[in-house]
């Protein structure tokens, strides 16, 4: 008996003791994020170096999940900050009064589009990401699928069952694409286009980068996905072309906010200050072609050259205001037909 108790006690001490000792020295700041997995470690390192006494704890998931989670937890918020989440989601939170107003020091240096100009300022822009088509040329040859030049090209029968895109309810990339098609083509034509696209779609993935990975591995012929992932997979040797169709493509901005009711407000403010610095933006630019700080550029290898030019004039407010309605309609149209397709 006694030996068991001792062992159990030791185990408990082991499990909690180490953590407790750490927590006493540093402030644990829980940050909800939709940043890509590989970005989290360097971001954490950079923040903890720039803001001493802070320990960053990530809760990472897709844009849609983080968005839903913040809304669900609004009575009992568990996040201190939100970082790297789509601006359209943050605008929605602002409307729900979930964000703590704060204007970081040095925010004026950022490009105007990346600043929250309507007071109270609740978010700070970091970078922009856009949707691209990852097109596997090896697989395309096998199926005689032509290289798409426009969005409409993806509805061709050669792509039937060989397309993949992110689920707009869970992925930010998925939603910005849907929002773009609806804004660009008009609602009626936009839905009609998606009806046709749906016929070709093999699967809607949970994350925004997975479609490009699947296309890169030849699992699918083409995937609608995050721009940076396309460049990265190609650089790693995948036989893919990263394409931005001629009509232009959807994009969203990733931004940072402080959650209202955080118990670590001071630490959160200092992290928000860091978000607007040049050093921070230089870090973003390792992963994003377009960042908030003017003059910081680091276009990665194999990044489509015409990207900035083909960013379609996005209306974030419209995206935020119509998010629930669009997702409900999308789900009604495409989720009830959950039968397998090939």
């Amino acid at each position, binding site marked *: 008996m006694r030996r068991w108790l001792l062992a*159990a006690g030791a185990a408990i001490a082991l499990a909690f003791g180490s953590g407790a000792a750490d927590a006493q020295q540093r402030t644990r700041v829980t940050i909800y994020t939709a940043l890509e997995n590989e970005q989290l470690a360097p971001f954490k390192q950079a923040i903890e170096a720039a803001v001493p006494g802070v320990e960053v704890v990530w809760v990472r998931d897709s844009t849609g999940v983080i968005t839903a989670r913040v809304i669900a937890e609004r009575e009992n918020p568990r996040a201190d900050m939100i970082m790297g989440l789509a601006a359209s989601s943050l605008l929605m939170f602002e409307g729900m009064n979930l964000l703590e107003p704060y204007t970081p020091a040095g925010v004026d240096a950022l490009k105007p589009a990346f600043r929250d100009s309507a007071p109270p300022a609740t978010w700070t822009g970091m970078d922009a990401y856009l949707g691209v088509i990852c097109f596997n040329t090896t697989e395309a040859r096998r199926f005689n699928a032509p290289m798409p030049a426009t969005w409409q090209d993806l509805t061709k029968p050669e792509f039937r069952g060989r397309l993949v895109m992110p689920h707009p309810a869970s992925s930010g990339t998925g939603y910005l694409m849907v929002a773009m098609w609806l804004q660009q083509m008009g609602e009626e034509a936009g839905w009609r286009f998606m009806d046709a696209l749906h016929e070709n779609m093999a699967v809607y993935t949970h994350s925004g980068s*997975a479609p490009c990975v699947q296309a890169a591995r030849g699992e699918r012929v083409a995937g609608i996905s995050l721009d940076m992932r396309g460049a990265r997979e190609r650089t790693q*040797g995948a036989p893919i072309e990263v394409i931005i169709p001629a009509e232009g493509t959807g994009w969203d901005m990733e931004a940072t906010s402080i959650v209202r009711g955080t118990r670590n407000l001071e630490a959160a403010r200092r992290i928000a200050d860091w978000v607007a610095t040049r050093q921070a933006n230089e870090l973003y630019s390792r992963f994003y072609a377009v960042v908030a700080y003017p003059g910081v550029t680091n276009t990665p290898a194999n990044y489509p050259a015409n990207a900035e030019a083909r960013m379609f004039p996005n209306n974030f407010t419209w995206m935020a205001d119509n998010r629930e309605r669009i997702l409900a309609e999308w789900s009604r149209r495409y989720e009830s037909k959950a039968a397998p397709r*090939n």
Partner: protein
Amino acid sequence: MSAVLQSSEDVLPTARRFITEQRVVAALVGLLCLALLVAIALPLWALLSKSFLNADGGFVGLANFARYFATPALVQSLINSVMVASLATCIVVPLAFTYAYALTRSCIPAKGLFYALALLPIFAPSLLPALSFIYIFGNQGFLKDLLFGATIYGPIGIVMAQVFYCLPHATMILVAALALSDGRLYEAAAALGTTRWRVFVTVTLPGARYGVVSAAVVVFTLVVTDFGIPKVIGGQFAVLATDAYKQVVGQQNFSMGAVVGMVLLVPAVLAFLVEQILKRRQVALLSARAVPYAPRPERRRDAALLLFCILVGGLVASILGVAVWASFIKYWPYNLSLTLSNYDFAEFEPDGWQPYFNSLKMAGLTALIGTPVIFLGAYLIEKAQAAALGRFFAHFLAMLPMAVPGLVLGLGYVFFFNAPWNPLGALYGTIAVLALNSLAHFYTVAHITAVTALKQIDGEFESVSASLKVPFWTTLRRVTVPICMPSLLDIAVYLFVNAMTTVSAVIFLYGPGTKLASIAVVHMDEAGAIAAAAAMATCIVVTAIAVKLLHLLLDAVLLSRLQRWRVRTG
């Protein structure tokens, strides 16, 4: 002889001490009930009540259920789940039956090896076979052509992976059922000149029919409630388990998630009831006089069964092997050179290797705390005299998790520990709550193991110690625990391995810094990093198998050194 006769002065009234003893029992039973309430009953109650509330916490009666059944997509998932589970059951049970038949009723060589092969999947998270099948039959799979153009993403892939995942469970049940046979019936049949097929139909099948039904019930429940496989290989084919995930994690729609949880509870509870009824009927199937059946060699039958076992056992090992192999491949399918880079988890996963260590910590904690708690609980329930009502209640609570799928229990935990009014809310997302959840999820089997071990011990030990004025805890320490040591090890290893591989219960529960290895597999697969997912799954398998091997070694040492008293000679 005077010494024997002398009535020594130490035979003094010790009533006070014994009353304390009874109080200790009552207090411990009370504690046990409280712990089981928090770990099992209250989360389930939270789930139940949540399904009757709307998003703002108002009571809406059956409105959520009405909405559920009015949503074609959700009803379709229900149909899909039942279909996939039925199909998998129809494949697994005959497969496992033949396999178990070969192991128990034939003279094939290397039975131990074949049994071990069939049990391999137990040590893997359910995600692993799904990952393997993507490599084998995916659009870039090396055996893709065997599917004749059909896609692996969907019911076909789910069923295939579930067959792998459920095979050990069905095999274990059927081996046990077929091993329990009365050799005299076969001798009688042979004496009457009965044909082999008739013997099979009239003796073998009836003898094992409860095993068959039980295996079918277990497999069906496992498939319906498994989350990992449809998540990885289900494609657009929605099932109940992925719906629950989508509702709760994807859309944070807790009410609808609770409804899906309740729907998931239905087949599991039905299956549980069927099993209970069967168990009651099975009593005295075998008389004490039964002679164990000893198979005689029969060349053609043995050759056929050996071939079958090589095929099935080989397939199981290969499927496992594919995931391991794939985890070392640089860039499937374009660059097949081998690399360790997929094990550099920091490249794919914010916490790097941390989830693996979290899993080790969580599984270790589950085993270290769970084993003494479960054993002490079983001891109180089985052997104590006081607090009869409390012991009955505790036993009921201990049996409850058997009927509750991990996913459902996990949902219950979300609702219970996340509720703003709950003072235990601080535990939400900690390793402690993950361990508690795993402990609760796997409580029943461990509890039954402990009770079975305790039942085999002479029921009069407690009476003897009372007559000798020795308190029960002394006898527990000096006699009961040493006798049950092998069972205690069994329980600890069972808890560790299951806590290590579980996905469905914990997917909702992890918090910042406490992501587990199995969840990391899900996330890496979600992000498309399938090779890294396979690598992490490989780490889990290797750890679980290593722990099992350690267990076997420890058991051997225990038997030869410390448990000398079990052996007649010496």
